[in-house]
């Protein structure tokens, strides 16, 4: 049972990594990257490393995304159009 969950999570991980590099829209890329970090937090749990999952959840989803969104706001791209 545990094996299947791990394989599904890894497939989602790789799909979201590819998704980040394919999307034209910056705003969407950051949101998919948030998903990537939360999947990562769950994987740390399955790898029996609870410290890492708390840190990854707080850091990956919490702080990293806030920094990216603020940079996008500063770059007036919050509308998400790919700028030249």
């Amino acid at each position, binding site marked *: 049972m545990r094996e299947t969950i791990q394989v599904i999570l*890894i497939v989602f991980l790789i799909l979201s990594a590819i998704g980040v590099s394919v999307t034209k829209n910056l705003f969407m890329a950051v949101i998919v990257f948030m998903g990537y970090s939360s999947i990562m937090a769950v994987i740390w749990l399955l790898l029996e490393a609870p410290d890492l999952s708390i840190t990854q959840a707080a850091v990956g989803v919490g702080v990293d995304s806030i*920094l990216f969104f603020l940079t996008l706001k500063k770059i007036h791209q919050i509308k998400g159009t790919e700028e030249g």
Partner: protein
Amino acid sequence: MGNLGVNFYESASVILFGIGFMNLLLQKNLIKKFIGLNIMDTAVFLFLAAKGFVFGGSAPIIVDGITDASYYVNPVPAGLVLTGIVVAVSVTAFSLALVQRLYQHYGSLNMDVIMRKMKEEEH
């Protein structure tokens, strides 16, 4: 090819490293470059933590006094990755601040456009 099936965490982390590496090289947009860099870092941490896992081992928190090594997972990679995650965040914050300053002056995130504008300003 037997080990690839067993070491599926390591192969996933290698593929993620490749994706992040490709992002870093090919993306024109600076923000996408730094997201690719983040993916590369998390891939290395996944590789390191997966190497510490032991079947049948539980989290390295001692439960009612059992201190026999075979009960627990190897704590060393978990410690290293904890340091690594926070290093990755602080470096991302520094690079995003750099991106903002570049945008303020050059008005674009595309590295080639920035290089061309810089050369024009030089002459």
